[in-house]
């Protein structure tokens, strides 16, 4: 049980290692680097949402805190990127505790609203606190991070670095869900009352996982800052929080792998759309970029309508054929009663 997850992890590392040999164009490598940031944040979010059942529409703010801590401390204070990243994590832990302790007493839409409101406040602060964040003009000239003396300033190097961190995050996440703590979290999702009846300290567990998922986001943010070398409030807005949430849901929120798949696919979607645009234009068809918004919305809608468990289960079901379908159906029917 759970062993296939670890086989999956090995496959994951093998794929990451070979991709730069298969894709020689650095542009696609860089698209995948951005996908890695989303992936990392989404793994954290799926631990919170899919396993512990607690929603957050404010995670982009944690990504932002990580990015800004890294940006400010390296540019203004001259810290080393690694120290700044660590400081970002510490800061995010403190902020997550501050907001999480009162917010996690809430449920459902109220928790959604609280995380959302908090995220928006941090965004407004990022825009308004010009002295620290540079305001809308942002912080530029953030240094690149280096590993064992190797400066990670090419796309390939950063590709390996960022996906290795995703891999580590994935490894921690997978271990966690197959452990005592992970079972406790899933129990909270299943039935909070029952979890408490066997002694699961639900408030403590919720806050722990909230903090952990915020840390994932923070590291994703720091990596973003070191890769782009420039940050402004734009990428940490609420739209990005919603996007992260969507990635998790599209991939399948009850599996960590779902978050990975969802993050990669939705990160690649704009590329697919621009490919579509080019192809239409290349054969002389009149096609306007404006339609891309429509296509984006439609894809999201179709996935949610027809593959409600997310791509990972949905595709698995399609692959599993009719027999598998009946099985799951029976499962659902009895679960529904």
């Amino acid at each position, binding site marked *: *049980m*759970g*062993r296939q997850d*670890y086989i999956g992890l090995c496959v994951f590392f093998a794929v990451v290692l070979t991709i730069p040999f298969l894709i020689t164009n650095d542009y696609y490598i860089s698209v995948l680097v951005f996908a890695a940031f989303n992936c990392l944040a989404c793994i954290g979010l799926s631990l919170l949402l899919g396993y512990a059942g607690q929603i957050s529409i404010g995670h982009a703010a944690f990504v932002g805190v990580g990015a800004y801590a890294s940006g400010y401390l390296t540019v203004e204070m001259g810290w080393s990127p690694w120290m700044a990243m660590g400081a970002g994590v510490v800061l995010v832990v403190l902020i997550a505790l501050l907001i999480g302790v009162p917010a996690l007493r809430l449920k459902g839409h109220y928790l959604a609203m609280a995380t959302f409101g908090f995220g928006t406040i941090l965004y407004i602060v990022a825009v308004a606190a010009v002295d620290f964040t540079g305001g809308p003009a942002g912080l530029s000239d953030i240094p690149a991070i280096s590993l064992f003396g190797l400066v990670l300033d090419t796309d390939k190097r950063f590709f390996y670095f960022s996906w290795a961190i995703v891999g580590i995050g994935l490894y*921690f*996440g*997978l*271990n*966690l869900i*197959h*452990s*005592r*703590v*992970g*079972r*406790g979290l*899933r*129990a909270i*999702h*299943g*039935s909070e*009352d*029952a*979890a*408490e*009846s*066997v*002694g*699961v*300290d*639900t408030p403590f567990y919720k806050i*722990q996982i909230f903090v*952990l998922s915020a840390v994932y986001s923070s590291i994703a943010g720091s990596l973003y800052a070191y890769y782009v070398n420039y940050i402004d409030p734009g990428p940490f807005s609420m739209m990005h929080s919603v996007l992260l949430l969507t990635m998790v849901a599209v991939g399948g929120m*009850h599996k960590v792998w779902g978050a990975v798949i969802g993050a990669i696919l939705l990160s690649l979607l704009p590329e697919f759309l621009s490919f579509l645009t080019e192809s239409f234009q290349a054969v002389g068809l009149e096609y306007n970029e404006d339609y891309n918004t429509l296509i984006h919305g439609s894809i999201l809608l179709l996935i949610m309508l027809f593959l409600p468990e997310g791509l990972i289960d949905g595709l698995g079901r399609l692959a599993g054929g009719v027999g598998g379908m009946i099985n799951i159906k*029976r*499962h659902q029917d*009895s*679960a529904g009663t």
Partner: protein
Amino acid sequence: MSKNHLELINLRKVFGGVVAVDDLNLSVRRGTITSIIGPNGAGKTTIFNLITGYLKPSGGIIKYDGRAVNGKKPYRVAALGIARTFQNVQIFSDMTVLENVMVGRHLRSHSGLLRSSLLPPFFRKEEKKISCDAEKWLSFVGMAEEAGRSAGSLPLGSQRMLETARALAMEPNLLLFDEPASGLNARETVAMGELISKIKEMGITVVLVEHDMELVMDISDTVSVINFGKHIARGTPAEVQVNPDVITAYLGE
């Protein structure tokens, strides 16, 4: 060690203006099966919820092993060795049967967030032990074969058994059953009765809220009758059955 394992002294719970539990006094002797019976709405489940911390008493004292345990959170109550089942079965339907019972071992294991995330489960001693123990309790209720199944796909009878196995995995001193036979067929009810008796033989004190009188009279050492949140009678099954107050309460004036 006091003779009474659990003692409720002037316990009171008011919802809005409605008195659900009205200065109730009740004691449960160690190692016995005590049943609480009474008409619908008599406040039986409320009593369980007060004991296990899901509700805060409006007044009175709950003594467990001679110590007051009022107002503790449910997970603290569980840590004292009090386990319970729920009237509407509460299992973790997205997890496997075995995993459900493994959650029951929560208090008997210790890995925290960090230790849990560092090593995969098959490299961890504690994880193996948890799974071993869980299998043991699953066999105890006769469900060893179902270990890999998704808990949500079980029929109701097995779900109640599973809930019991999960509670037993806590190795509690006191186990509260909230209508364990509701929704079960005759055969399953008998099996449940046998299981509860077996649990008592292990030295665990059992408190039972149940509507199935046959089951109650079969296995209980003591029966307490509650009506409108008040204790109206107490005794052996035989005594209670002939008590005129009880008959009035059930049949009306």
